[in-house]
């Protein structure tokens, strides 16, 4: 097998070499940070996902080395592969930021904004997206769209009003489980996720739709209204799961000794972590819904939560500290800039400032 050629791309003026066939989004994720466009529907572990939410739109200002013409429209970075010499603008393009603002507005006009009672609040992709790219107010003055509530079983609760139609849960059921009991009904702005006949989702891997859902449309019924995610402490743990497809490595959300919730481990992009053997760390329903005691688990230690997340509030263990680099740059420990004892020629060094009662006054130095 021949080696895949490497393509050079420039995203927001940062160059990187990636293997041919990589999408713009994944190339941007390799650079990391703000350069990576936000995603609502793309999920790297689900085949065919992406292209629908339009939040990852980027501008291609140079098509490739061979054909330097810019692309006429903004492209969905999650489904566009890189070409050699491509130049992409994400946060440096005003067109992109404007379009993204528009997409956030469109996603929010029919969203109920019931974050105060939503279990997803605190780890919601839509919340993060609107915090970064949205506006304070809305220009929408009409009644928001509502759906009739549908019961989809004892474990998962479906809030169709919150759904943004990312199709991730449909792909999950298709690709992870043998049967898919839910799907998209209707079309246009009344399209909805449903089982049509109020069936329960029964498959033993269906719990993963909770993890892939970017909003609070699919939430864990066993955790419903129990706690806010930022009051619970994430702890990594594992157990020997008898299900061969389940990886058994999970994240427990605890308060004291009580396990409130079990989820799969997430990486920095909010997706299920890739295990060391390269497979995604999906977990089975038994681990997720039925093992709610510390004795069921071997606890590894606190989970790493990025400081930008609200969950890191009041949870200092395991957070990443900003590295201090100044001694590495100047080669020695920095001097105290305000150590006036050593450097002041005006004030007498022999006078101990801490001994003076009250604030120092010029009279103190005349003595």
């Amino acid at each position, binding site marked *: 097998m021949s080696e895949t050629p490497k393509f050079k791309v420039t995203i927001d003026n940062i160059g990187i070499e990636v293997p041919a066939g990589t999408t713009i989004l994944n190339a941007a994720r390799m650079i990391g940070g703000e350069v990576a466009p936000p995603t609502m529907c793309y999920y790297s572990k689900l085949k065919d996902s*992406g*292209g*629908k*939410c*339009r*939040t990852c*739109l980027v501008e291609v200002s140079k098509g490739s080395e061979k054909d330097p013409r810019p692309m006429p*429209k*903004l492209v*969905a970075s999650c*489904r566009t592969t890189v070409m050699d010499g491509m130049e992409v603008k994400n946060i440096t393009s005003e067109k992109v930021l*404007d*379009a993204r603002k*528009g*997409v956030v*507005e*469109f*996603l929010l*006009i*029919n969203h109920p904004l019931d974050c105060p009672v939503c279990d997803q609040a605190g780890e919601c992709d839509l919340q993060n997206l609107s915090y970064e790219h949205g506006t304070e107010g809305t*220009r*929408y003055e*009409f009644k928001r*769209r509502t759906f009739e509530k549908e019961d989809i079983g004892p474990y998962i609760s479906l809030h169709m009003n919150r759904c*943004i*139609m990312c*199709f991730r849960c449909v792909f999950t059921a298709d690709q992870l489980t043998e049967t898919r009991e839910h799907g*998209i009904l*209707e*079309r*246009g*702005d*009344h*399209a909805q996720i449903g089982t049509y006949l109020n069936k329960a989702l029964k498959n033993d891997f269906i719990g993963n739709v909770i993890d892939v859902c970017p909003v609070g449309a699919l939430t864990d019924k066993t955790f419903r209204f129990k706690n806010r995610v930022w009051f619970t402490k994430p702890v990594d743990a594992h157990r020997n799961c008898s299900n061969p497809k389940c990886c058994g490595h999970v994240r427990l959300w605890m308060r004291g000794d009580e396990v409130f919730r079990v989820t799969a481990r997430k990486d920095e992009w909010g997706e299920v972590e890739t295990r060391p053997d390269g497979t995604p760390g999906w977990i089975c329903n038994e681990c997720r819904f039925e093992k709610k005691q510390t004795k069921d688990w071997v606890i590894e230690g606190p989970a790493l939560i990025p400081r930008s997340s609200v969950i890191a509030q009041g949870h200092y263990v395991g957070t990443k500290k900003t590295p201090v680099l100044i001694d590495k740059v100047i080669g020695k420990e920095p001097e105290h800039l305000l150590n006036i004892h050593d450097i002041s020629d005006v004030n007498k060094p022999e006078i101990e400032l801490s001994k003076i009662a009250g604030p120092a006054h010029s009279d103190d130095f005349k003595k």
Partner: protein
Amino acid sequence: MGVKLLLANDGVEGIRYYDTYRKHGGYTAAEKALKMSQADIVEEVKKSGLRGRGGAGFPTGMKWSFLAKPEGVPRHLVCNADESEPGTFKDRYLMEFHPHLFIEGLLISSFALGSNMTYVYIRGEYSWIPDILNQAISEARNAGFLGKNILGTGFDCEIYVHRGAGAYICGEETALIESLEGKRGNPRMKPPFPAIQGVWMRPTVVNNVETIAAVVPIIAMGGDEYAKIGVGKSTGTKLMSACGNINKPGVYEIDMTISVEEFIFSDEYCGGIKNGKRLKACIPGGSSVPILPANLLLKTAKGEPRMMNYESMSDGGFATGSMIGSGGFEVLDEDQCIVKHTMTLARFYNHESCGQCSPCREGTGWMYKILKNLEYGHGKLSDIDLLWDIQRRIEGNTICPLGDAASWPVAAAIRHFRDEFEWHVKNPEESQKRNFGLAHYADPIHVAATA
């Protein structure tokens, strides 16, 4: 009288049946084509300059030459007969009254592309046409023009007519392919293009009914001869389905050399505006292309008369021009309300959005609600700017062109008829009782003298 190619035998009794069609020179082009090589037919179509008649106007010969030809993988021709654009009914006319012309075109195109299994995806609402087509197909099979080893050339071809379920979005080629495969009719992301991976991941060409039918005269008369008809890059003839406030609505074949004024007012075509009213506006190419006021419709911004062809119609871009699109020519007289008309279109696109991309799913409904407020006298002046902002953020940001199709009519209506929108806001009560009327929309436009 202009040149008639597709509708040359229009009005001949029994042209729907094989015997009559054959007597009038039918299937001679197919006999000729089956003796040619496949590359030669593609070359003839390329030479003819035929542009896709479905709306986008992409050169057909070029589309055909893009078709991937991997070894051992079947290729397919899919005919897009899901003609759902409001105001367009030319394909229906062609399939209903000239089914054999269409089938002959399908046969030639299938041979040129190497498609042994050709599909006709027909609009679900055209419930009586599949019967006509199936009858014509069985007649053609009996005559040896379909089936195994056609005319001893060793080429097999079968045509299947598949009925859609009544979704506008399935007229988009990738959604059509999904629907044909039995899935939900959601457009696919491109690339891969259908020419590489189409129906069942096989190379596929999707063409409009009229495009397929136009292949027959191209083969019969030769690509060079065909290219001589028409002007510039608008070669051949185009079917226009005229409707609205005109004396003679119907399907007309034009050779793209006549002016818009002639088309509307001459007795050969539309026969003027009904009841002696005056022309206010027109949508020249099906509901999704920009609407034009009378003055810009008859004359371009440069002061030249506007002609019925691709270039002249789009002269001035979207600022002062429009598109010939799919040929659904809708004429509005002075009694029509542009706000109401735009609202109706917005409702249509809201209803027909597939719900895949967020801008189109949420934005089309929002635009409809705002337009409804404006139409019923509850609007605000800021709503007009808001509409402009919404359409700007939908356009170009969606997977398929339905987002563009939904935003162009709104954009054009605000661009050219802003006065009428403002009048609706400022006179909410009066706007419920009477229409804005013609106003200045037919006044001659000032053309700056060129230095």
